[in-house]
């Protein structure tokens, strides 16, 4: 029975639609192509009120800023405050990245989004034999608290919010501690700090696998330690950003992306409650990071479905009462995997469509990729163009004027329900396995993602999925009409600073700090409490991570 429409009207619409489909809608040559979303959900030629007739408007959609938050987490959405322009930046030594941050802020970015180089993400100093070739690549190099001081020098960390893309908990536990310790040394109280750190154990266990990673349960523990610490001491900080974006980049479908972030957030919540925290003390600060991929409507449906699922889990499973615990807030990055190295300027249009879907889906902050990201770290010009694309979307298109403009679209509502259905099925499956940590330990997630990634590639190669410039409309490339970014010298600069610091610092103090880390591992204490103090002795990130690896051992993930 429909609560939205008169049943007899629905029956009539359905009859008429069938008539239209049989008699009027005539696909060319009588044979229809297969139409489906990027994740494989079948798509009908037309949707009508009959498709959404079973919905209960008040319970399934509601109003912005109210349960179940499908139409938006804030009452005014972009009419009140537009999304944060948070452009990712980081490369080379911190001296260089500090200048890029200042450049982006001067040009109107409203928050910092800092990415760290591969050695930092993995817990190695720039000078480690494992790390030397990668120093300054993929992000900024951070070895000690001195680098953190340089990175944020001259930037008002008491006013500007900083997103630290720390990815793996082993990186986060030290780098975030350095950020907090640096704030203390600048006399900025921890309760004044606003920002987000990524801190997602699946990044270490499944998504970006590298040598010497921690076993999943310890990586998960470090992630929960940081959440617990922030709940107690840094109340305005989002201590985790479940990195669905990266899961998607590694190969996930839309529903897998949502299912894995929500399963992860559920596991963290269970663990923090087990540690004695009240759900409403930490849940308001759990945040999400999602992708904006190429299937425009599926992405919008994905964001809307994610909000409904999270709301119901928080309310029904965890009994959360604070409305802020029930709202799924998310940052979006446009899909890097959808960018092409061929005809790179086309990526400007691609990323603009991606960002539009994020905004129509109600994102809280948006990063638009640079057009050159399939080729190199973004240049100043490509970063600026991406920022301007974001500003054009915000100021010129007027998509901000009404809330959830696609709410009520028969198609978008149906797709929202379908993505929700598939996500719930996956969540059930993960629950049946004993939760997300188990699903990571056994390699189930690795396999799911690997299969999806392979299917995606097959779809490109068979031509089933057209990619302009790659499998259609290819051109013989002449010289690219663009400069490529060169990473500035990093290793030498980091090596000199490390040498100086090792000479100057108090060796006994450093050793005591590292011993304290090892002892804390042993007695299963909260490591962030100890590491915030350890970094002040100028112990290096590699030394602290080394202490963690010695205590917890390393893990060989299953490979598919």
């Amino acid at each position, binding site marked *: 029975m429909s609560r939205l429409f008169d049943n007899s009207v629905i029956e009539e619409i359905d009859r008429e639609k069938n008539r239209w489909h049989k008699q009027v809608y005539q696909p060319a040559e009588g044979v229809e192509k297969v139409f489906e979303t990027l994740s494989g959900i079948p798509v009908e030629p037309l949707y009508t009120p009959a498709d959404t007739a079973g919905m209960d408007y008040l319970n399934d959609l509601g109003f912005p800023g109210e349960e179940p938050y499908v139409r938006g987490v804030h009452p005014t959405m972009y009419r009140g405050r537009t999304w944060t322009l948070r452009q990712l930046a980081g490369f080379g030594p911190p001296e260089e990245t500090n200048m890029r941050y200042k450049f982006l802020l001067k040009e109107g970015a409203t928050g910092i989004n800092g990415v760290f180089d591969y050695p930092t993400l993995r817990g190695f100093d720039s000078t480690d034999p494992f790390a030397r070739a990668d120093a300054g690549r993929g992000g900024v190099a951070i070895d000690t608290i001195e680098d953190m001081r340089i990175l944020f020098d001259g930037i008002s960390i008491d006013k500007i919010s900083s997103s630290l893309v720390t990815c793996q908990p082993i990186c986060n536990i030290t780098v975030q501690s350095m950020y907090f310790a640096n704030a203390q040394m600048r006399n900025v109280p921890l309760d004044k700090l606003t920002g987000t750190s990524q801190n997602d154990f699946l990044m270490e266990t499944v998504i970006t696998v*590298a040598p010497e990673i921690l076993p999943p349960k310890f990586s998960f523990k470090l992630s929960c330690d940081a959440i617990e610490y922030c709940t107690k001491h840094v109340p305005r900080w989002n201590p985790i950003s479940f990195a669905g974006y990266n899961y998607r980049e590694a190969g996930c479908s839309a529903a897998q992306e949502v299912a894995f972030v929500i399963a992860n957030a559920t596991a963290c919540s269970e663990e923090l409650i087990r540690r004695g925290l009240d759900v409403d003390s930490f849940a308001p600060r759990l945040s999400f990071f999602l992708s904006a991929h190429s299937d425009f409507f599926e992405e919008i449906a994905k964001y809307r479905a994610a909000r409904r699922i999270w709301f119901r889990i928080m309310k029904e499973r965890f009994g959360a009462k604070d409305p802020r615990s029930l709202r799924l807030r998310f940052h979006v990055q446009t899909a890097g995997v959808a960018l092409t190295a061929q005809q790179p300027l086309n990526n400007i249009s691609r990323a603009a469509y991606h960002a539009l879907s994020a905004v129509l889906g109600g994102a809280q902050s948006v990063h638009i990729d640079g057009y050159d990201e399939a080729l190199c770290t973004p240049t100043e010009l490509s970063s600026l163009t991406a920022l301007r694309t974001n500003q054009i979307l915000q100021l010129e298109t007027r998509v901000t004027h009404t809330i959830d403009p696609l709410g009520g679209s028969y198609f978008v509502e149906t797709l929202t329900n379908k993505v929700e259905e598939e996500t719930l099925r996956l969540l059930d499956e993960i629950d049946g396995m004993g939760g997300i940590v188990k699903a990571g330990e056994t390699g189930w997630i690795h396999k799911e993602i690997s299969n999806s990634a392979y299917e995606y590639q097959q779809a490109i*190669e068979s031509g089933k999925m057209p990619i302009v410039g790659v499998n259609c409309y290819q051109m013989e490339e002449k010289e690219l009409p663009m400069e490529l970014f060169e*990473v500035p010298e990093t290793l030498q600069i980091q090596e000199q600073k490390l040498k100086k610091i090792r000479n100057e610092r108090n060796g006994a103090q450093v050793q005591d700090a590292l011993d304290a880390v090892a002892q804390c591992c042993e007695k299963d204490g909260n490591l962030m409490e100890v590491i915030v103090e350890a970094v002040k002795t100028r112990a290096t990130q590699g030394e602290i991570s080394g202490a963690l690896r010695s205590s917890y051992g390393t893990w060989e*993930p299953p490979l598919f």
Partner: protein
Amino acid sequence: MSKGRKKRILIAKPGLDGHDRGVKVVARALRNAGMEVIYAGLHQTPLQIVNAAIDEDVDAIGLSILSGAHNTIFPKIIALLKDRGASDILVFGGGTIPKKDLEKLKSLGIGEIFTTGTDTHAIIDYLDRTLER
């Protein structure tokens, strides 16, 4: 390479960068094309890769590099193979590698480099062609 033997390929991803979607897809495509693929997994220093290639008696090493460290890592692997008298092992690669670096890397002895957007069949055809000779 002796006729009739399956091609043996070591696939590796050197360095600390974890962007392994591409390398896994390539490994699976080569396997589906009937090759024996040994995925070096987490043994990712140039020395570990060269040792694994020799131990496993492979015909070729395929390296994926998206971090930008290609100008450091490729030459190191070529030099290590030479030191060990294993220069007969073909080295090819792929990843985010700018055009301007391709010629230099090939002159060092890298057989072929497949950049972003390459069809996996191009890699299979290349190995079929090159290793049959």
